[in-house]
């Protein structure tokens, strides 16, 4: 089963197992590809489009997180076009929600913020859409602030696949899509929630956070992320 593929990523000749994705192969060789919806240990959805890469011979950009390596592939992870597109994806996200870092619990521990810094995104060229969602603080210990949610669905996946509760899901669609717990009830009313807090730990922004914290708890978060990344028993979790 262990077939080896040889490919080139950013000019670097790489060999990788046939079963790995471009993202995994790149990571192994310290080539950084920005990601947002991807989280090692969870199933991939290919939704954020930040990890798009150019592959020679393909006229379409491919998401590195779900594209498997192939023999002789020539991959480019950075180009002025990719850079421009990544910045625009981030601009779109910032325009969609209310991402005001200075008052956010995740300030300085936010993946969205980090990505925006890295992309040199200093302003947003689009209209701010000022979502009209509510903030749900009905849970004893946790809060969900939908204004900061980027719909990456990490919480949905960790809750369904790792915790097995499937309290979260995405409801609605398009620009009305939003996160719901159980039957779109207040989080505090959601009976399936085990209050395990895993969703808080995987949230890339400050959308899900614990009560009583003014700033997020990066250490706790890092420990958990390492834990699920290292649990290679992905298959043991319900793979959806």
């Amino acid at each position, binding site marked *: 089963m262990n077939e080896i593929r040889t490919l080139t990523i950013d000019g670097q000749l790489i060999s990788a197992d046939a079963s790995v994705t471009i993202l995994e192969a790149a990571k192994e060789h310290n080539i950084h590809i920005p990601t947002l919806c991807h989280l090692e240990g969870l199933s991939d959805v290919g939704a954020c489009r930040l990890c798009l890469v150019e592959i020679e011979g393909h006229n379409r950009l491919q998401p590195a997180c779900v594209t498997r390596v192939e023999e002789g592939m020539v991959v480019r992870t950075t180009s002025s076009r990719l850079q421009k597109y990544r910045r625009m994806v981030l601009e779109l996200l910032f325009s969609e929600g209310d991402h005001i870092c200075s008052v956010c619990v995740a300030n300085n521990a936010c993946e969205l913020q980090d990505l925006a810094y890295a992309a040199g995104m200093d302003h947003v060229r689009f209209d701010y859409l000022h979502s009209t969602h509510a903030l749900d603080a009905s849970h004893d210990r946790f809060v969900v602030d939908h204004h900061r949610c980027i719909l990456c669905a990490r919480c949905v996946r960790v809750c369904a696949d790792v915790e097995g509760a499937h*309290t979260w*899901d995405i*409801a609605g669609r398009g620009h009305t899509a939003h996160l*719901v717990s*159980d*039957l*779109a009830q207040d989080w505090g009313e959601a009976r399936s929630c085990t209050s395990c807090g895993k969703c808080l730990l995987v949230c890339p922004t400050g959308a899900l956070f614990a009560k009583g914290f003014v700033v997020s708890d990066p250490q706790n978060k890092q420990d958990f992320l390492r834990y699920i990344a290292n649990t290679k028993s992905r298959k043991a979790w319900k793979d959806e």
Partner: protein
Amino acid sequence: MAQIEKNQAIEAENKHKQLDRALMRQQGRRGALIEVLHEAQHIFGYLPRDILGYIAASLQLPPSHVFGVASFYPSFRLHPPAGHTITVCMGTACYVNGASRVLRAAEERCHPRAESEQHDRIPFDVHAVHCLGSCGSGPVMQVDDDLYLHTAAETVESALDQCVETVRAADHASDGTTEASPSGEIFPESDTSGRQDARNNDSAAGETDDT
């Protein structure tokens, strides 16, 4: 009064029995959720929250998944319908002929923004749909089951006024139930528009053209 409550209880029970039968039919069928939701909406008129919970439990699916599916598809109603519906076709051909103005007029009439006009509110849900299938006679508007061809923003106002009269009268006559459709002639005979029976017409797809 007690009799009415009793009747309502019996009706609710009947509906639940129907749902149970539907669930039974779908048992073991893969991917049955959407089919069940179709049937539930047919039975209840919309998808009440507790019914979604019941379906989730019966099909052994997470409630959030069921809600996610129900809210994804526009055909599923999560709130009780208002009783009467105005559907404005926003297909390309109707749009090019000014359907957006018709829609706006209908919306303003049914959901006035100004506080002072609230008493004027007409008890209609206004929907826009992609195509009613009468692309040659646009803009097309449907009030409950009746199709109105060649509508224009200017005629919508008066049409709606007459509509609401007939509907209110009918509602009154049938003692508060919402089974009614306007029976009055809404467009004058001289108008180019034809008022047509559209009861069989939800399926219409092609063009009609009066030229």
